[in-house]
């Protein structure tokens, strides 16, 4: 759009990360303004999964993690050979959700990301009902091909948006705060975060 920037029109479908089932369709526009600033996004999704089912899955995931008596830790998920131990799958799933928040903030019109690996994860035991994890995740950056190491702190309670704080090695020394409220609510309309594993 002359003088304004580049506008993209997107139509896409989503799928459940765990099962691969179709989870709904979305229509979005993304406007990258001429002068550098975050893009303007408008998005509308019709999600096919039932809210109650999402809540139940969230609760199950939450209970599984709460049931552990010792703080959960893990390294190299997946490992070099692509394996993920079944016990570590929930941690990977949470990392996928949390790192998507990092990617949301870091991506630009010309820079994109994938989660390459969870280098380490450690659970922080809390006195309240929230579960909390400290992650080091490796992001694969396109087209530079760089591997970016990010420190990520996730906090979650079913029914609440996934809280993500991150700090990536390539950035300046500030902690990036992302509350994930706009897209992380398990009870909200765009329920990909924290659910649908």
């Amino acid at each position, binding site marked *: 759009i002359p003088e304004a920037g580049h506008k993209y029109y997107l139509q896409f479908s989503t799928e459940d990360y765990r099962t691969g089932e179709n989870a709904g369709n979305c229509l979005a526009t993304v406007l990258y303004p001429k002068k550098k600033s975050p893009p303007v996004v408008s998005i509308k999704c019709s999600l096919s999964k039932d809210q109650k089912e999402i809540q139940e899955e969230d609760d199950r995931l939450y209970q599984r993690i709460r049931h552990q008596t010792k703080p959960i830790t893990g390294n190299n998920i997946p490992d070099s050979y692509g394996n993920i131990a079944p016990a570590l799958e929930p941690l990977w799933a949470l990392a996928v959700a949390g790192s998507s928040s990092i990617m949301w903030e870091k991506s630009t019109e010309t820079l994109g990301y994938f*989660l390459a690996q969870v280098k380490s994860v450690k659970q922080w035991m809390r006195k309240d009902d929230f579960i909390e994890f400290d992650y080091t995740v490796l992001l694969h950056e396109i087209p530079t091909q760089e591997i970016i190491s990010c420190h990520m702190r996730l906090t979650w309670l079913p029914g609440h948006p996934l809280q993500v704080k991150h700090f990536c090695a390539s950035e300046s020394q500030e902690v990036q705060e992302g509350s994930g409220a706009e897209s992380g609510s398990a009870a909200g309309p765009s329920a990909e975060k924290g659910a649908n594993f």
Partner: protein
Amino acid sequence: HQVLRVVPESDEELQKVQELQGLEHLQLDFWLAPRGLGFPVDIRVPFRSLQPVKAHLGASGVSYSIMIEDVQALVDEEQMEMLRSSRQLPLTTDSFNYEAYHTLDEIYNFMDMLVAENPNLVSKLEIGRSTENRPLYVLKFSTGGTKRPAVWLDTGIHSREWVTQASGVWFAKKIVDDHANNEGVASILETMDIFLEIVTNPDGFAFTQSTNRLWRKTRSRHAGSICVGVDPNRNWDAAFGEAGASANPCSETYHGPYANSEPEVKSIVDFVKSHGNIKAFVSIHSYSQLLLYPYGYTQTPAPDAEELHAISTKAVAALSSLYGTNYQYGSIITTIYRTSGGSIDWTYNQGIKYSFTFELRDTGRYGFLLPANQILPTAQETWLALKVIMEHARDNMD
């Protein structure tokens, strides 16, 4: 020892089985303990307890089946298998495990075995040495002739893309099998040779195994930087150093101090030039599920873009036909992003019309860390696409 299976169908039967649990002197080992009616109970029974156990069950009419006749035999067999398949070298290319990732030594050993088993078809060429002095091996598949028109395939130029080296190993075996069964590429081998470099970047590959699984580049050191490595797919003499590569030695897309500075690249350049009769050149990468043709360094379409696009359509259709895997295709610059100093841009400009790059599975879920159980399907589907390209090259030689 035998392993017996009982499926109690009544409370009486269940009780009889549970009684066995209390008879400690029998030294029974319940692999599956009694759970309830209809659930199997598996019991490992030492030899001397077999008779009493069978009698106890038989007396009450409880039927059982022998799941394992001889536990020791199975254990012995497994021991042998483990000795053979784990870190010990397999004895033949038939016992090689194509569904697992292998070390550099295992792959080099595989090559030697393949040559030894098929001396009239396969030979191993050393086209150079890497920065760390590892041999750069290319397998030549030929049924004769002198410098026949040839197809070049390379895998593993970026070391972290493990599914590519693993697929390369499978391709090698597939070529040999097709030839032996007079099917598939056997017809291509009648008039063409196939060259396959499985570990195009052995230093990088060794580094992914010993130190950093996500290492991409070579392991060269160049003056003036503490950073190591050059991106071997930005080091070719095609728009070298222009936009689409980095001049920063610490970058993953560092093009190097000058074109062909990397022995891994120079050795292929020298080989291709001296051979002079290569008709198709395919570089294999992962991930993204793409089939790409030149150019990466310019928006100007390659003169043969239409033909290459048509071949790609056919190749991708063949690939998808096996497992439904979705691929996109087009020129590098329009499909992914601008790159300079790339291999197929150079080979295309050398006159090798059928120059293609693949990006294999997946699309980012596992990325470089593709689970080993996807090696076989990936190699199989990719092979179908490669055959389309090879056949087209064979049928369109001038």
